[in-house]
């Protein structure tokens, strides 16, 4: 019996190496969804931040180190979205292969269309600004396509034996994405050109792709809670400029946005900006489908 126990224990420790699947860990569920499209069942994909979390404020919990320790590929959104937690995790994970500059480290923003890159001087009087550009770029499906291509390239370097599978999976993903984009464009036509106010500046890539006009934010500056004076002027602006709806990310408290929406007389819509932001959003395709459905319902012409 004692020998049997030892054998079971030893098997637990040895199980991981025998499985030999490439382990991919991403910072967000969005990147994990894209990685799964490319990897299929060839690699094991995990993530750190859940889709219903504010990705700016994730705790660098030591349990994440267990995920990172065995990862062969780490993928981050970059542009300092994860500056408060990813660097600390990487340097504590004791896994040199996924440190910046190594093949196992990938910044998904490279090669993507990045909006709102500050041109002039920048300091924190502007709030918690991102000096390298707006990091919510995955909300443009064309950037999703570029990210998937980059993941396929990187996986093929790390795991050349399965390069053919990654290439085939990528091709299937791109074909499906091209088809879906036509559907999404048709859905977005219902609200194209409407003016919206959002809580945080999370939506420039989405707005550009699907034709929303973001005129203001509930936050006066990124990461800064609104003052009564800002709320007062925001309500006046919503009324004056004919704003059609107020979009709020699910991780923000809805009490104040509800008050703003009620006083300004516009609908409030809770729009998940990430895969996993709602129960049924499990893939990158689900994400845009749900977002467009919500916007069409709330702001459709």
């Amino acid at each position, binding site marked *: 019996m004692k020998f049997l126990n030892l054998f079971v224990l030893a098997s637990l420790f040895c199980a991981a190496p025998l499985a030999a699947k490439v382990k991919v860990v991403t910072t967000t569920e969005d990147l994990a969804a894209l990685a799964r499209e490319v990897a299929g069942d060839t690699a094991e994909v995990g993530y750190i931040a859940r889709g219903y979390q504010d990705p700016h404020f994730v705790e660098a919990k030591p349990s994440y180190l267990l995920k990172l320790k065995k990862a062969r590929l780490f993928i981050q959104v970059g542009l300092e979205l994860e500056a408060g937690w990813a660097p600390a995790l990487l340097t504590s994970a*004791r896994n040199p292969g996924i*440190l910046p500059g190594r093949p196992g480290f990938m910044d998904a923003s490279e090669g993507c269309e990045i909006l709102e890159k500050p041109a002039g001087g920048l300091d924190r009087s502007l709030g918690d600004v991102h000096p390298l550009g707006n990091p919510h770029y995955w909300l443009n499906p064309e950037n999703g396509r570029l990210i998937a291509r980059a993941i396929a390239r990187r996986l093929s370097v790390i795991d050349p034996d399965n390069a053919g599978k990654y290439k085939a999976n990528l091709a299937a993903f791109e074909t499906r994405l091209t088809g879906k984009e036509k559907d999404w464009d048709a859905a977005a036509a219902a609200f194209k050109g409407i003016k919206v106010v959002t809580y945080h500046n999370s939506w420039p890539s989405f707005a550009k792709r699907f034709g929303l006009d973001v005129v203001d934010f509930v936050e006066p500056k990124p990461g800064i809670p609104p003052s009564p004076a800002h709320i007062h002027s925001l309500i006046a602006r919503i009324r004056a400029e004919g704003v059609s709806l107020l979009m709020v990310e699910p991780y923000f408290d809805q009490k104040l946005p509800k008050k703003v929406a009620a006083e300004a007389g516009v609908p409030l819509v809770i729009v998940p900006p990430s895969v996993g932001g709602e129960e049924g959003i499990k893939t990158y395709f689900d994400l845009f489908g749900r977002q467009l459905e919500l916007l069409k319902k709330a702001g459709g012409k």
Partner: protein
Amino acid sequence: MRFHKALFSALLLNVPAALPAQPQLSGNALQSSNILNPNISVVGWLQGETGRRNPAGEEEVSPFAVKEAEIAFQSVVDPYTRADVFVAVEGEGGIDLEEGYLTWYSLPGGLSLKAGKFKGAFGKFNLTHTPETPFADRPLAHEAYLGEEGLASAGGGLSWHVPNPWLLLNLDAQAFTMPEAAEVPAFDKARRDLLYIGRLNGYLDLTEAANITLGGSCALGAAGQEFDPVSSSSSTLSSRLYGLDLTYRWKNPRRAIYRSLFWQTEILWNRREISAGSHENTKGYFSHLEYQFARRWRAGGRYDWTQAPGGGTAHESGVLAYLTFMPSEFSLLSLQGRQVDRSDGTKEKLAFLKLTFNIGPHGAHPF
């Protein structure tokens, strides 16, 4: 939130060795000429104080003072190491190298090596520089055993992630040059002038929102020397300090910026050799509870009880309560009140106004 970035990240990620600040390997500079420069940040600490300290006149206190500006330089050195340097410029004019160390973070087998001057892995609280703690002071037990600035000295240490499939378990083994008793009262310089620290701690997620860290620490060193006039020889007295720490955290990730709970308790036991073959056992502890009840507001309290190393059964106890407002994640204003029952029977009542700010690249969020 992100305010205490640098040093606070170490507290959360304190499971590995003391990492008071985490360098950002990707760099933040906007100008290419700055890309290879180290990250430079400053934590400023201003404090007002009113009330009467006991014993009176023990410490001259300004009603309002610039306590410290802590300047941090952090950078990757090469593909194998990073460097972290913390210089404290005190309001009274003194300059002190609080920490300055290299970390080899690319070692195989889950190992990490550290060398230089750094804070010893004794408990969790010791790893935090005072400006970055929620308090205007340090817990009485920590002051009594580890000194006003905490246990830090020159030395080296290995940290190891103990492989297991259930939880993150970390083992630290460190050796330091023995600090003076004035700096770390639990120990004193002697001929055998090395201080050894060992620490084992485990971290476990209880739920998605709650987690717990349990750690045990041990420090072995000297407690000065005893001279025997008969044999004209001297012998080294020993001191052993044991610690147990428990940290519980709760934060709903769906509302992470609005509500959180933090509870930490540390207990210290000291077995000190008073003279050859004669030992004295003393102890101390503190317990700290903090609740974040709004995006920018936190309230907390701390209970202290401690004896002094080699100080017999006399003890002192105290409570500290605070209310903290954080205009942004880079500054805070904290109103605090403290009462201490001193061992001589007197009571000390003080009020503090603590103001800190952080400038520099974006560091890690506290955990």
